[in-house]
């Protein structure tokens, strides 16, 4: 049995549009994988397939050697995959307080009330937002909202954390602080992290490996260090240049 995720010849089509075509790669447990590529190349679709929010048109997705999605069929529903996801728009429930947002994220765990509360408090504390527990998402800053979404994701103690460009729109200082915290939490909790991003700093801070998608197919994949040593694709060349400039500054 091979632990972690394995994607075998995954294709996804919406009506006449082929979004992914024959995508295959693996995600090792406790690794950090960045999915990068130009806009519209299928990055977010890939993340939704991993989460089980959509079924592939063809191909298989395996988790720990077991098929969890196959052609047109979701075998294991999202809630049973030990996955959580932070969406680009964060998807916070606006009518609930920060604490209730985190608690509702634990809905499927059937925990005793005090245990759910303990986990929620711990997640808020880890994300450094325990003082915001009674506030509603509309009344806190963008960076704080990111932390609420992260706390909700971490409270259920997932094995896999999927991040769909969650840092876009944040100022650099807030973003760097968040990246540092996530990297620490990932290491502490041995979480496997899959990040969709356009940003070389985010990708390299959180992930050691990358898959480069272009027009729905995997163009390059491997360790970041190796990929950036002699980048073949334009996007990796831009990544390399950007990282050099940041290093100089």
């Amino acid at each position, binding site marked *: 049995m091979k632990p972690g995720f394995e994607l075998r010849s995954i294709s996804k089509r919406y009506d006449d549009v082929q979004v992914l075509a024959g995508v295959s790669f693996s995600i090792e447990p406790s690794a950090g994988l960045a999915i990068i590529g130009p806009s519209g190349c299928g990055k977010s679709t890939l993340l939704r397939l991993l989460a089980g929010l959509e079924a592939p048109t063809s191909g298989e997705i395996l988790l720990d050697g077991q098929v969890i999605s196959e052609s047109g069929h979701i075998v294991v529903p999202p*809630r049973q995959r030990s996955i*959580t*996801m932070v969406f*680009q728009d964060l998807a916070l*429930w606006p009518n609930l307080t920060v604490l209730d947002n985190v608690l509702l*994220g*634990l*809905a499927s765990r059937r925990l005793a009330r005090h245990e759910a509360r303990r986990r929620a408090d711990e997640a808020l504390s880890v994300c450094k937002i325990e003082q915001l527990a009674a506030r509603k998402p509309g009344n806190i800053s963008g960076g704080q909202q990111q932390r609420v979404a992260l706390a*909700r994701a971490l409270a259920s103690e997932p094995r896999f954390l999927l991040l769909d460009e969650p840092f876009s729109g944040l100022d650099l200082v807030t973003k760097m602080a968040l990246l540092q915290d996530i990297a620490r939490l990932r290491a502490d909790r041995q979480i496997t992290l899959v990040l969709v991003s356009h940003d070389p700093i985010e990708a390299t801070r959180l992930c050691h490996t990358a898959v480069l998608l272009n027009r729905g197919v995997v163009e390059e994949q491997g360790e970041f260090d190796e990929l950036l040593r002699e980048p073949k694709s334009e996007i990796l060349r831009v990544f390399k240049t950007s990282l050099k400039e940041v290093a100089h500054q």
Partner: protein
Amino acid sequence: MGNEEQQMISCDVLEKPGWWREISLVTIIFLSLGPALPLLWVAVTEASSPLTGGFALAVWRSFVVATAVTGLSLLAGLPAGLLSAMYDFPGRRILLALLAIPLLVPSFLWAIGLSQVRIVLGLQSGGPWLGAISTVFAFLAPALPLVAYMTLVSARRLSKGQVDAVRLVGGERLLFVYAARAVLPSALLAAILAGILTLSDPGPGQILGYSGIAYEILVSFSASYDFALAAQQCAVLTGLVLVVAVPVAIFIAPRVAVEILGREINLAPLARNACASWITVGVLSCIVLLTTLLPLTGIVRPLFGEFPVARAFGEISRTIRDTLLYALTAGVIATAMGIWMALAAGRERQLRRLALVGVFLVLSLPPSLNALGMVELGTIAPAWLDPLLRSRFTVGLALALRFLPVAAVLAMRSFGSTSPSQCLVGAVHGVTLSQFLHRVLGPAMLPAAVTACMVVALEATAEVGTVLLLRPPGADSIPVQIFTVMANAPEALVAALCIFYVAGAALLLTLGWILAARI
């Protein structure tokens, strides 16, 4: 076990395609139009007195009024709505609230007011032309606000970026031209709908001496007791309405779907421009003056001599229970069906278009179609179905089906303003459908549900035709009571009843506004 299975339905069912969506939409649209089928059967199969020359004249009159109302409401309503959407101006909330009042009051009340104004001006017998002009004027009272509000809603979809880009290139004038072009389909849809609705409303034409096709149907059923003739006339009216409504539903409604059902994002703030603000105030004040205050002045006129408060209260206390019962039944049923429709249509573009086309057709069709159909159903159905088909509940049900489109559009707008990822993140965390509905979607849609219930209740109260045809003996609503006594009762009593009704509607509108804002 079954219950447990049900609890395990994931909330992402609301964001996924599914056969239940199409089935739900078709079921709701069929339920809304189903009661008409027995009537159409009678119209086709039963012989009756032929359609007379008088009926042809009524058709012509209805056509004249509908065309004039469509054109004039578009001409004045579009600029008014656009200005209101783009500029901040003093007294904004009050003017917009006053503008909404005619939408919630039966059109025949305004006709009563205008007939009094005609008396003051010495124009009580001016021939058919004066009748036509007065009738058009009375129908403009609800038509203008309808077009203005639809334009306002549509124009608020223009983003800050879109507005600023045009402003930078060509200033306010160019912005107005571009914005007008952008909202024209919505305004046109509303104007055509307003025109179509005049075809089904007997009140103003009867009062102001230019009665049309709807009045002929009412007379055939209520005065001549010729159900087959009423059915035939109703079928003719339906055919005429469909000739206009179907192309509009197919070609214009889908274009409007995105604007009236979509999410409100990056809204352009209201601009503070002194000149434009005062122009807006002027335009809105003129509309409010002509469509609300002038008829109200006419309504109040007979009260200067005498104000029969006690008798008016007596009439109201006799009819208030049934009025509220009809209104609440209609509001609750229409809101529940509207939310069901919104969830079934979801975010899928084709389904939302189908839903919008469906509700446009439902709203376009004459209310007498369903009402007379229910009368026929009540006649042929076994006695044990009387509580459903021959009772006060029947009236509420017919009114709910009539105003389902209002609730459906509000619910679809509300659902469209939530983010799909809120549901998807719930699915990832194992949030069940019932938990999501109870904790997240329910509270998010509550303001829209309360508003829909309130608006449908007020619209249902203002609807006279359906109640006239379906009410059990002695179960009048307040407007029906006014409509039936206005020919014989003293003017002052009719005026007092009208004033109480308008005041009540305005009060409920204010309360609803405050309530929806607080939830």
